[in-house]
């Protein structure tokens, strides 16, 4: 099948970006599409040849970017430059930093500009004026709660969502949420995050949970709902259960530290600071159960990681999580803000036979292979880009 090579800008503001966005960048370039990255360059990852970086990280590199692209645009694309400058001036945004940000994009004129974080929509909607298709990803907080607390943002979404060429939603749930702000359902593709599934033999062939190892992974943020998992730990401890609960990514979170001490959970709970992704994978695969106590998520990638590495999952039913986990089939699902339900699920797991555990783990892996493989994600994205380009 003949596929057209696309020029795609993947914009998250930072280079490198999150694990899943990086996976998308590499996956697309492996399919011979040209990828353009812009924004703050923290360090240069080892990308394939088709990935072009237009990042900057110092005053000097910003100045260099500005001078270079001002020159190129003035000489070769004078009309475009004039047009963009006029747009920026009309919005009182004709600032040096904005030009550093925008000129390289205008020079490259990708087919697609794919904005990863919806909050930046106001800053990038101008790309449409130059024939660049504007695609916005609908992810977590940017849709689920930020506009609730920020009326101005909600108004911006309502004004600009109808103008966006296409949306990528990380879950069906978030797609529905975005519709409240004027996103046209027909213009939303739900494409699940994907990861490489390594076929491995099951790690818990002879399981006996005399001291069950529970884990949660995520940054220190209220939406992660760790307090409910700790409340559940208290219930488990009061019932005399032996367990350890490790939260990776939250070392100095005073709210959690206080709760642990207040509930007398010091000997059961460990907090670990942010660590490298490979180490996170190691922690997940060594745990018996990954708990996702979140009150809000798009689809939590750590859950996918756990399912891929034979670690059982207890998740709340927040956001898109019910699209991944079916209760008692490939994991366990509990209502949000419900410590009793988390504790009950842990006890249920302890009581399961090895055969039942294996059935659930295999089902979890099947979900990942069929719904969350890297290939499925990349194909979904390419289809979305192509269909957006065809639409006039």
């Amino acid at each position: 099948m003949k596929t057209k090579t696309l020029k795609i800008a993947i914009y998250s503001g930072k280079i490198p970006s999150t694990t899943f966005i990086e996976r998308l960048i590499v996956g697309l370039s492996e399919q011979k599409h040209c990828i353009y990255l812009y924004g703050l360059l923290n360090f240069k990852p080892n990308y394939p040849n088709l990935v072009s970086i237009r990042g900057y990280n110092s005053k000097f590199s910003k100045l260099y970017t500005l001078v270079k692209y001002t020159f190129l645009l003035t000489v070769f694309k004078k009309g475009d430059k004039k047009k963009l400058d006029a747009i920026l001036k009309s919005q009182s945004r004709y600032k040096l930093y904005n030009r550093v940000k925008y000129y390289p994009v205008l020079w490259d004129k990708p087919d697609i500009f794919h904005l990863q974080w919806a909050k930046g929509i106001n800053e990038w909607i101008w790309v449409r004026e130059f024939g660049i298709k504007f695609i916005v990803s609908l992810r977590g907080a940017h849709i689920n709660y930020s506009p609730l607390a920020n009326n101005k943002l909600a108004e911006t979404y309502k004004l600009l969502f109808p103008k966006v060429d296409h949306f990528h939603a990380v879950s069906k749930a978030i797609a529905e949420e975005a519709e409240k702000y004027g996103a046209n359902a027909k213009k939303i593709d739900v494409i699940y995050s994907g990861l490489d599934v390594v076929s491995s033999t099951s790690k818990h062939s002879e399981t006996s949970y005399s001291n069950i190892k529970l884990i949660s992974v995520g940054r220190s943020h209220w939406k992660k709902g760790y307090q409910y998992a700790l409340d559940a730990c208290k219930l488990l401890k009061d019932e005399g259960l032996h367990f350890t609960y490790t939260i990776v990514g939250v070392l100095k979170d005073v709210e959690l530290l206080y709760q642990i001490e207040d509930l007398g959970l010091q000997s059961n709970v460990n907090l670990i600071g942010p660590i490298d992704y490979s180490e996170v994978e190691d922690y997940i695969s060594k745990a018996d159960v990954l708990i996702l106590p979140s009150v809000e998520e798009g689809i939590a990638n750590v859950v996918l990681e756990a399912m891929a590495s034979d670690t059982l999952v207890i998740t709340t039913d927040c956001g898109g999580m019910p699209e991944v986990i079916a209760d008692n089939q490939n994991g366990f699902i509990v209502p949000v803000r419900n410590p009793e339900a988390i504790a009950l699920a842990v006890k249920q797991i302890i009581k399961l036979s090895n055969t039942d555990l294996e059935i659930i783990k295999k089902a979890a892996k099947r979900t990942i292979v069929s719904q969350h493989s890297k290939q499925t994600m990349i194909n979904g994205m390419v289809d979305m880009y192509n269909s957006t380009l065809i639409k006039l």
Partner: protein
Amino acid sequence: MTKASNNKITIGIVLSSIPKYSETFFRNKIKGLQESGFNVILFVEYANNSDLDYKCKVVVAPLVKKSRVSSIFTSSMIFIKGLVLRPKKCLKLFLLNKKDNLSTLQNVKNIILNQFILKEDLDWLHFGYGMLAINRENIAAAMNAKMALSFRGADLYLTPLKHSGCYDRLWKKAIKYHVLSEEMQQTLIENYKINDAEIKVITPAINTEQFRCEASSNRDNKTLKMVTVARLHWKKGLEYTLEALALLKQQDIKFHYTIIGEGDDYERLIFAAHQLKINDNVEFTGKLNQGKVKNHLQNADIYLQYSIQEGFCNALLEAQAMRLLCIASDAEGLQENIINEQTGWIVPKRNPKQFSSKIIEVNNLSTSKKEIIKQKAMLRVKQNFNLEMQKKRFVNFYSH
């Protein structure tokens, strides 16, 4: 013997900034001490122009410039001036710091940074929060002044969690401690082995004349009106409170809940209200002035204070003074703020089910029972938590 020429006892109070109008505790304390014949000097890290008319002497820490060159120059000048004008104090501080194993560089920095305090003559040096005394453990001794330290709640229960061992040097010093509750006193004794005699409990106080229920308003009895005055911070337990209220809604109880205050957790709480489907029943007013707070209290039936961590809580005292039925959590000082079943109700923290049951139970009480509780609470606050009493206790604190 007092240090000041007019034979008054001079108390230096160290705070991070000049207390704003809303920070009644320190304002009342300073005013009370002055009325009782003490000299008060306030040492602050920074001050705004609008603060400069404050009614006691205010000494502001010198501003260290951002540029390295000017910072070195300013620091050197402060250091030299200190050595010339008050060599004994500087030497004593240096030796005491050295005994605490401070490196010479740290020691010199310490002497420079604290010159603004050292230059005054004090009988007492009183640190307003635990954190303010860190790296200043020897200043009072170097000045031949007595050292006092107030713990206010978060600084005793939360700061050591974030900065492990931050008070280790303090615990070894001769300090007179002021805490807000007996619970905090117990924490100092049990966790940090502080001598009971060195700790004084002085609860916060309110202006009971200002917080007086002027008239019983005509309330719409169909809707249960509840209110909380609190910073939007996790320690106030507002998320658990909203979860309890969601349970009320599930039971078709009509209610309106007002949260007065601002803070970092606004996004968290507004999302919770939406997720729990009570956003139409919950109002976030933001920060309000005292008059408006009073209006809200006057129009409410029940005051909720379901905190996770709380030193004592002035807002709860004010609510009781305003004759509201008060339900609080069992967090630290709250158990002393309210006498359970007599002047209000205490519910174990982090338990929305129990909290919502208690709200229903209280709401269903007979009018006469409610009146008894309200009256008792109001009288107790008036008698035990008034400004005059607080003033006497502080005078006593510095006199012994």
